[in-house]
């Protein structure tokens, strides 16, 4: 049985602080991969996109739906791996691209899912960090988004790499579809690369506040993250980071659904982190943040530095760098959660992935790489 080395919470901090360089060094390289893919499929009609993944890859899929729909102007569905495998794959719309996302390339469910894609309905492409992996070998095409390995960690760098791969695919798909001119597409790619600077500023904005927040939140049995649109993806990703880092049960929820359900939850002072990026649902994020505060929750608002919501009195406020494109905002909105996960793990005296407890894959554990579909 493989035994995971004990993983210190500082690893999370190292991961998030490496992100600006990761973006700067890899956008152009990934763009080459993405353009190669569209050259290879030249002539294929595309009317629909499915993006499937598990865990972080599924969260990246959720966070990129808007980019695909807004830039390439075709319907995009983010679907988790098991749902795609057992339910959706039999009912694909014609002229589809199915994008399977797996950083390791070995996620059993996604490998099985992409094998199900009927070539008469569409093409399959993997976005993966490993071009020799099972997923790469089982899709029609591969977009290789490898990054230097920085040591095992709850996925932060790999999530960022998947997001970049997906956003670049959305941009070049828009160009392929004739919805975006070549110059505009190139401009968007440059803009993505420029987000390196935004992520750096986001890190600077988040670090000190997240450390304080971690001390404040450490007594809570649960943490809630709220967001809509692409930042619903950020919310579920954030909840996952907390779970993976320190084991505190966390939940990512849509802004509206909180008002219908989790608003009634105990404890009354549960920490609630609200992602209020500029964009289509910003207005609702402001309402929900105020509602949560009214109900007695410990509210952290994450919004842009020129946003009036930051003038209101919340328990914690994060002034993110101002940026206008909601569809790419998940690239930096998650950094608060990465810091919070690391500092909360430290505050609780725990280790990442419960790595001091041998609760890992192969040993007793979650069989996400070895599970095989039956029937």
């Amino acid at each position, binding site marked *: 049985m493989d035994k995971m080395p004990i993983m210190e919470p500082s690893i999370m901090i190292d991961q998030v602080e490496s992100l600006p360089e990761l973006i700067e060094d890899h956008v152009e390289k990934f763009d080459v991969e993405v353009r190669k893919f569209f050259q290879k499929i030249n002539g294929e009609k595309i009317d629909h996109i499915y993006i499937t993944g*598990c*865990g*972080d890859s599924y969260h990246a899929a959720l966070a990129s*739906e*808007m980019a695909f*729909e*807004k830039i390439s102007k*075709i*319907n995009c569905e983010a679907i*988790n791996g*098991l*749902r795609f495998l*057992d*339910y959706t794959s*039999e*009912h*694909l*719309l014609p002229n589809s691209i199915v994008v399977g996302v797996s950083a390791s390339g070995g996620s059993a*469910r996604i490998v099985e899912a992409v094998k199900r894609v009927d070539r008469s309905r569409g093409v399959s492409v993997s976005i993966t960090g490993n071009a020799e992996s099972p997923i790469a070998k089982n899709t029609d095409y591969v977009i290789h988004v490898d990054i230097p390995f920085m040591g095992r960690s709850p996925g932060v760098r790999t999530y960022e790499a998947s997001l970049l791969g997906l956003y670049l695919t959305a941009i070049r798909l828009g160009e392929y579809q004739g919805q975006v001119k070549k110059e505009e597409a190139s401009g968007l790619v440059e803009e993505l690369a420029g987000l390196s600077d935004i992520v750096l500023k986001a890190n600077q904005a988040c670090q000190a506040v997240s450390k304080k927040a971690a001390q404040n939140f450490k007594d809570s*049995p*649960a943490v809630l993250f709220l967001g*809509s*649109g692409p930042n619903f993806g950020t919310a579920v990703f954030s*909840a*996952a980071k907390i*779970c*993976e880092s320190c*084991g505190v*049960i*966390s*939940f990512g929820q*849509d802004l*509206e*659904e909180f008002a*219908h*359900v*989790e608003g*009634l*939850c*105990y*404890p*009354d002072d*549960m920490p609630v982190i609200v992602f209020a990026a500029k964009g*289509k*649902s910003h207005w*609702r994020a402001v309402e929900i943040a105020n*509602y949560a505060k*009214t*109900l*007695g929750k410990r509210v952290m608002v994450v919004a842009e530095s020129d946003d009036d919501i930051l003038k209101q009195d919340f328990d914690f406020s994060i002034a993110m760098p101002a940026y206008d494109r909601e569809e790419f905002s998940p690239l930096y909105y998650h950094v608060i959660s990465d810091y919070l996960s690391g500092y909360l793990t430290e505050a609780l005296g725990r280790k990442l*992935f419960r790595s001091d407890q041998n*609760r890992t894959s192969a040993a*007793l*554990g*979650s*069989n*996400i790489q070895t*599970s095989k*579909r*039956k029937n």
Partner: protein
Amino acid sequence: MDPVSPDTMPKNIFDLPNLIKSNLLDFSKKVASALNAIEADKVRKVFLVGDGDSFHASLGSEMAFESIAGIPCEVASGQKFLDYKSSFLSNENIDEILVVGISASGSTKRVIHSLKKVKELGIMTMAITGREGSVITEIADSSIVLSIPPFPPSPGIRSYVASLSGLVLTAIHLGWITGRCSKEEKDELIAELLSLSDFMNATIGSTEEAAKLAAKEFKEKESLIFIGSGPSYGTAVFSAAKIIEACGVFSMGQDLEEWSHVEFFAYPDDMPAFIIAPPGKSSWRAVETAGMTKSYGHPTIVITSPGNEDIIQYADYVFPVQGEVREEFSAFIYHIGVDFFAYYLTKELDRYLFKSDNRDFQKLNEAYQKRDRIR
């Protein structure tokens, strides 16, 4: 709101068989009539839009649209659809799209605004509601009003089953209208739905005692998790919502596969895990998941058919669901044990529904909810 005793919940549960028996055929006629009022034969894609229980019912019926009607189906919460999905539909074949808004009250703001928005694009809209003359019926091109006699306030159980009825009957009728199934097949499916009344009765009989014992054992727990895939993901999130609405205990619904990637790491190790496992496409993964939850010390409660020994071997408690229920209809019945559990847990904790005994909470909440409704 005056304090609402949890004793209203069993009344709602016990009425379910009668609700189906007395109303299903009438509901079916209403569905047929509503579909006749629009160009239902052109429908090639369906969006289901709802919040809270209506969102959960949509998740629970997605499979029926795809496998019975043969029509790809996408489910979105009201916020997501209003602010995101609907913005990008203008490039689709809008003549072939049907957007169904579900709102038991008929006044759910986000759902109403969603229908208004897509109507302006020329997209067909239909409402499923419990209230004649409600705002949503004034907006939609066509309405299915599924009135059921009012009962004392309770977390939505009857209204949920009514919504499920409207949705699944719509799927069945659409299947016939578009030529996917014959009239005989349609009638058989409706008869099969009607037979659920007897299975509900039997399931009420077989689950109540187990639910009562489980509630007694788990009353100290601060969090619960409900896990299922396909339509059972809808059941999982609905179940979590019932617990929260009834007694405020933190609960979440999760997909089977996603649990293995994320909540697998979560404390506490003795968090009860409810695995929803109807016979069906993902039952194999439900068995694996139950094996994992059990091996990690989570009290494991399995909701399944009585003969399913593969999964029952891992169970600390079984909520047995009676009758052969096809997976597409499983959401109607697989929640019943949890409805009882929610009731008994609330009694054990000596709480009132919807935190209705907490005057401060009620004052704040009522002021907010009043502001947020159309009427």
